[in-house]
């Protein structure tokens, strides 16, 4: 494959690759805590949280896909100046778009740090008890760095390969644990007020953050690929997996016990017995596979940030490689900022809601601007001939 430094040469992502990209980015550390956060306000009806919580994500990804369709082959960084100013004044456009690009990239950047921190916490508390947190985080960073050395098509392929490895274990755990399920736990179906439904959904929102990386990756879509379809299906798969895991959590533990478990999904794995005692300690196997899920979350997001920067400064792959090596240093310290587990969950909850605001707000704003400037449609070139 020909490597070109300019961002203009695109390797086509298929629709399926984009779906994998979205799903594997969304499924990450959130899945380990979701049964607890989802039931905190909704009690027995916690399984509604991922469903309601994903509504914003659908809308947002649809708008992002439409933006990308309006500016085909361009990333958020490339089309932002065109949204804010006409082609004739690129300086102005760049200036006006910089804050948004900056907010987005730094947000993804910080979120990535938190994901790797939570990953480290899980590993340290449950499997590698004597390993320092920093080492675990660094190994994850190294993996992400390794991915950042490559061109963007590698990202798509890596996600495509890892996709089954992420989906099936989680699905397997959810379904295998149903043998211990007591379905009385999910009744009464609804007893909380309408307000609590949204409070509960708000808790689940964090698990649906991360799809904003498609602001970058949609640019590499194949010409015929269905961007909207990929986005919607990607989130749909995630939602189904999440709902299943929450249902499994509620039916096995009951919502009261879920509130007391730091990592409910991990406990779910621990209590799940595979018939025939093939694997008695399923949690080690599960965590080993789950590393892939976290890797795709961290690496995709980190790659998006680095790629965004590269386009921002109009640089080539060399810049990307060097930047990816150096940007880990601040990321490392950001990840170490929260002092304890309570703070981590608090921050990730804030990040979730900030993410929702950003993902709903910025694409909407862009569309409003495009409409106001009368550029919502792609100018038809044939008209000039006539």
């Amino acid at each position, binding site marked *: 494959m020909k490597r070109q430094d300019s961002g203009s040469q695109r390797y086509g992502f298929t629709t399926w690759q984009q779906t994998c990209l979205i799903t594997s980015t969304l499924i990450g550390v959130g899945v380990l805590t979701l049964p607890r956060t989802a039931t905190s306000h909704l009690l*027995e009806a916690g399984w509604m949280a991922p469903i309601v919580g994903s509504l914003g994500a659908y809308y947002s990804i649809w708008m992002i896909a439409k933006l990308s369709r309006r500016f085909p082959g361009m990333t958020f960084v490339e089309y932002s100046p065109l949204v804010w100013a006409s082609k004739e004044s690129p300086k102005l456009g760049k200036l006006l778009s910089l804050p948004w690009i900056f907010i987005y990239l730094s947000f993804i950047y910080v979120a990535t740090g938190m994901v790797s921190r939570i990953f480290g916490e899980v590993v340290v508390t449950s499997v590698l008890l004597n390993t320092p947190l920093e080492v675990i985080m660094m190994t994850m960073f190294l993996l992400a760095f390794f991915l950042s050395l490559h061109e963007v098509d590698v990202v798509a392929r890596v996600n495509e390969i890892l996709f089954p490895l992420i989906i099936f274990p989680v699905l397997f755990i959810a379904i295998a644990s149903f043998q211990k399920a007591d379905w009385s*736990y999910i009744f009464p179906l609804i007893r909380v007020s309408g307000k609590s439904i949204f409070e509960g959904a708000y808790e689940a929102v964090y698990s649906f953050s991360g799809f904003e990386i498609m602001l970058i990756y949609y640019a590499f879509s194949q010409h015929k690929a269905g961007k909207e379809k990929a986005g919607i299906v990607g989130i749909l798969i995630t939602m189904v997996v999440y709902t299943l895991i929450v249902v499994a959590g509620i039916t096995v533990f009951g919502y009261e016990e879920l*509130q007391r478990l730091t990592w409910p999904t991990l406990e779910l794995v621990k209590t799940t017995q595979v018939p025939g005692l093939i694997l008695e300690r399923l949690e080690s196997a599960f965590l080993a596979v789950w590393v892939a899920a976290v890797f795709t979350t961290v690496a995709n997001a980190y790659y998006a940030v680095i790629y965004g920067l590269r386009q921002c400064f109009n640089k080539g792959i060399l810049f990307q490689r060097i930047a990816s090596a150096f940007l880990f240093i601040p990321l490392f310290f950001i990840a170490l900022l929260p002092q304890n587990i309570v703070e981590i969950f608090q921050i990730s909850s804030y990040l979730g809601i900030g993410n929702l605001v950003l993902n709903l707000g910025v694409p909407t704003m862009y569309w409003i601007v495009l409409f106001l400037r009368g550029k919502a449609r792609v100018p038809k070139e044939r008209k000039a001939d006539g």
Partner: protein
Amino acid sequence: MDRRWSYLCLLLLCLSFLAGCWDRRELEERASVLAIAIDAGGEDEERYRVTVQIPIPIKIAGSSGQGGGGNSNAVKVMSVTGRTITDATNNLQLRLNQRLFLGHTRVVAISEEIAREGIADILDGFRREALIRRLLWPIIVRGKASSLLEIKPELAQIPVVFIMDLVENGRKMGTIPDKTLGDYLNETSNKSMQPFLNYVEATKREVKWIGTAIFHDHKMVGSLTPIETWSLLQLRDQKRGGDVIMPLAGEEDAYVTLRPRFVDTNLTIRPNISKGGGLEAVFACEVQGDIMEYVPGHMRFASPEEFIRVMQKELKQELEKRAKHMVTKLKKHNSDILKLGLHLRSYHFRDYWSHHDWNKAFKDFPIRVEYTIKLRRLGMEMQQ
């Protein structure tokens, strides 16, 4: 140039085969605790006495050629006191050459004395410890809990394995409830039900399952005999329970034995007609089973049909009597281990649960048990 690089790569590749675990710990290098027993401490400050059973790998038959002498010393039993459970395990570590490892713990024996005081404090440590498995079995021991670890069963090398097999087999046969730590924790967190645990008694050589210990808010409040436990298992978990041996009315030394094969229980909540107003819980339990023994040689019925009809009726009465007895006991101890509260909360939330305090209401909630016996076979014998 290319060649040299490929040689280097090959060399590096070979190195990866030499890799090992730098902080590995061999199996013999850790003191794996198989069972923990918790008794009251006695001394003023030290609240708990913790006894652990550690297998000695080299002495277990089959692990190496020389081992397998007597089974008496295949395990080491050690005992320490402490203010909390973790304090006690730390004190134990001071006396051990290897690192204590709780990841293989399968049984936690708790003495009845401690259980009656409440075991919330004990389980807090287990809740937090990542190595502890939710599938381990907490067992309440009548008398001293440490006696359970000191038995010499002879049928198994390691006493804990013997106990585990005992519970596991009973679970498979449907006679002993499978109550794991996870179940206990779930049931104590849940506001609509109470937990129960297996209850055993240990003598010098043997261990015997003597029913279940029932709890209320982490405190043991009473116990059920094996027969009562089987009623509970039939109503709660649709497990078959043990054989029903019923003395026949009007005869001396006359017994009939029913072996339940399948149990199907339906719990319905109905408006209480007889006592006016309110709700009533009806456990409709269908038992399919065989006659396994019938020992008044001389008592004969007119026809096999008649025999089955009479037996079904009498067994129904017997089982209902037993269940009623069990329910009365639960009500006396105010401990809803039947999952009735959960059912009410799930399916009758608005019309019942939201305006009743189950902790108080369970005592007076009318419960009716209706058995249906279906005798399917008479064993290998065709005459009654």
